[in-house]
């Protein structure tokens, strides 16, 4: 087993809502409500869940783009929950992110060369212009961009190519951990496969650790070593990818897996169709957050949020019925 890279303990992030005459805090969106997990060096942890489950907020907290409300983030044995200033800037070299929308996350007025150079300038890496340009060219080659792309603008590229630019940018500073926030959701299937393969290649070559956030369970299963399923700000189940897909224990995971349309006309499995929508994170249900939609709900589920149970094979689940 390789070393522990990141440890998250009881992380909470809520966004206050202000209202009334005096603009006092009247409520809060509890986006992440006490999440704990750890990531080892070189592994990929998948985070799945539906819109509004807090997966992106969690991803952003991890690399300190958002300040957690409470809890701890430990990176390489060091508490980084509250680091600031120069220290935080130094830290950003190790923690990077790839965003979902390759159209919105690249500055349209900068050439690809300038986009890739910027992080090097900010972090004062390769102070010599010639070295810097070489580094940019090397990055472009690494992600499969042609050298001509250097002086082009983002609008001249297709979605898949732009995502390659985004990936190259995050690699510029030689990070150890990359949060991939829905990196392939905006792409067509054939292009999606190209980008997934690229991410996996880079991981092997550079020894990267990924936190892979997506709503597409098939993609997450394909890239991840372990997968955490989130529902309304909590991790409801966490297990090895194979284990989770073969032997899901939480009723929500089961429903989620059975809801995916399978590209096989004969696969007419019995589908669990959940009723209703995800409740609001401003006012989550008492007890288990999933109980109003759960087909296996019993009275006890309404009383308190279930504790984390450990099943064989490093399989964690939060459900009293599992």
């Amino acid at each position, binding site marked *: 087993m390789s070393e522990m890279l990141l440890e998250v303990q009881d992380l909470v992030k809520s966004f206050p809502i202000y209202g009334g005459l005096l603009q006092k805090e009247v409520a809060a969106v509890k986006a992440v409500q006490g999440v704990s997990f750890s990531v080892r060096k070189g592994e990929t942890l998948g985070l799945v869940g539906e819109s509004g489950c807090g997966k992106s907020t969690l991803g952003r907290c991890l690399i300190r783009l958002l300040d957690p409300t409470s809890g701890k983030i430990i990176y390489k044995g060091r508490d980084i929950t509250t680091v600031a200033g120069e220290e935080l800037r130094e830290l950003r070299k190790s923690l990077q992110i790839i965003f979902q929308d390759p159209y919105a996350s690249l500055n349209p007025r900068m050439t690809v060369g300038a986009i890739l150079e910027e992080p090097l300038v900010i972090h004062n890496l390769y102070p010599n212009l010639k070295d810097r340009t070489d580094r940019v060219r090397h990055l472009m080659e690494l992600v499969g961009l042609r050298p001509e792309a250097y002086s082009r603008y983002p609008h001249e590229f297709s979605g898949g190519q732009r995502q390659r630019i985004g990936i190259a940018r995050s690699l510029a500073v030689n990070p150890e951990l990359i949060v991939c926030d829905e990196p392939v959701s905006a792409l067509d299937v*054939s292009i999606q496969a190209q980008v997934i393969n690229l991410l996996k290649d880079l991981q092997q070559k550079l020894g990267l650790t990924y936190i892979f956030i997506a709503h597409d*369970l098939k993609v997450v299963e394909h890239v991840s070593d372990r997968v955490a399923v989130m529902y309304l700000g909590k991790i409801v189940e966490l297990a090895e990818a194979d284990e989770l897909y073969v032997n899901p224990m939480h009723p929500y995971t089961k429903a989620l897996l059975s809801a995916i349309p*399978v590209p096989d006309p004969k696969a007419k499995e019995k589908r669990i169709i959940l009723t209703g929508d995800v409740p609001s994170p401003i006012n989550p249900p008492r007890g288990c957050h999933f109980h109003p939609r759960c087909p296996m709900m019993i009275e006890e589920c309404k009383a308190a949020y279930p504790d984390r149970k450990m099943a064989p094979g490093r399989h964690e689940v939060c459900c009293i019925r599992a």
Partner: protein
Amino acid sequence: MDTLLEVKDLKTKFKTEDGTLYAVDGISFSLQKGRVLGIVGESGCGKSVTSLSIMRLVQKPGEIESGEVLFRGKNLLKVSESAMREMRGRDIAMIFQEPMTSLNPVFTIGDQIDEAISTHRPKLSRAEVKARTIEMLQKVNIPAPEKRYGEYPHQLSGGMRQRVMIAMAMSCDPELLIADEPTTALDVTIQAQILDLIRKLQKETSSSVILITHDLGVVAEMCHDVIVMYAGKIIEYGTVEDIFYRPRHPYTRGLLDSIPHFESGQRKKALTTIPGLVPNMLHLPKGCRFADRCSRVQSDCRQQYPSLQRLRGSHKVACFHPIEDVRKDVSISSEGGSQ
């Protein structure tokens, strides 16, 4: 079986500053009564323009250049605008991807469904129209329909809004429903609810459905027949079993292979990809449009465009060097369309 819709050599062009491009470039297909036809393909392949052309909703600078759209034998491209207007919603209804932008934010959902009904059934009294609206809301499983009747679109969740769109589309019992990426904006558990609903309503009313999607999983689950489009052309057509078990076009094969599968044997292997990008529609290659990305390409592929050739049964493919028929499955012939 009765043919409900027949599209013949339809061409829809868009005039741009850099030249004219054909988003739909001479496609022909037919749809039988009570069948669900899927149109799949990647962004920009012309699947949405196909549906808009059938509805005659293509906006400037787009224009239908030629072809026929025969609905119950009548050419829709020849009827007057007012006649077409009457048919939209009554005979052919459509639901779109983004329910928020297709609903009017300043009217209640009740008003909007009422309007759809009273436009096509002017003889109904207001009370009757309202009763029908509430019945439709009930049919699409909206809880407390009387209460929801007076609510505005922003008060509903994405899944609910799509249900409202479906209620509106089905309110006049159309014979053909065109659903353009109806679940793309929704989460999987909500998508499962909506697909289940469309399937149920389709069976109940035995209407025909054209389902446009990029998700092959949705196609496998919902459709009887499938059209695969690439760069404005139909490159393969067949029953859902033909397409998923015996794809003959290298592009269809490539699409199927690039989806991650759950089978543990396949796991962790690199995904099969289709190299390269979709060609620029303004500068299309002379021969087959897929030639530059194809693993089976030969010199004749670059000379001329392969026409759609009939193989076995209804299965057609536009390829000079199709993949060999891998007919191992014996039970196939007995199964005409799933579900």
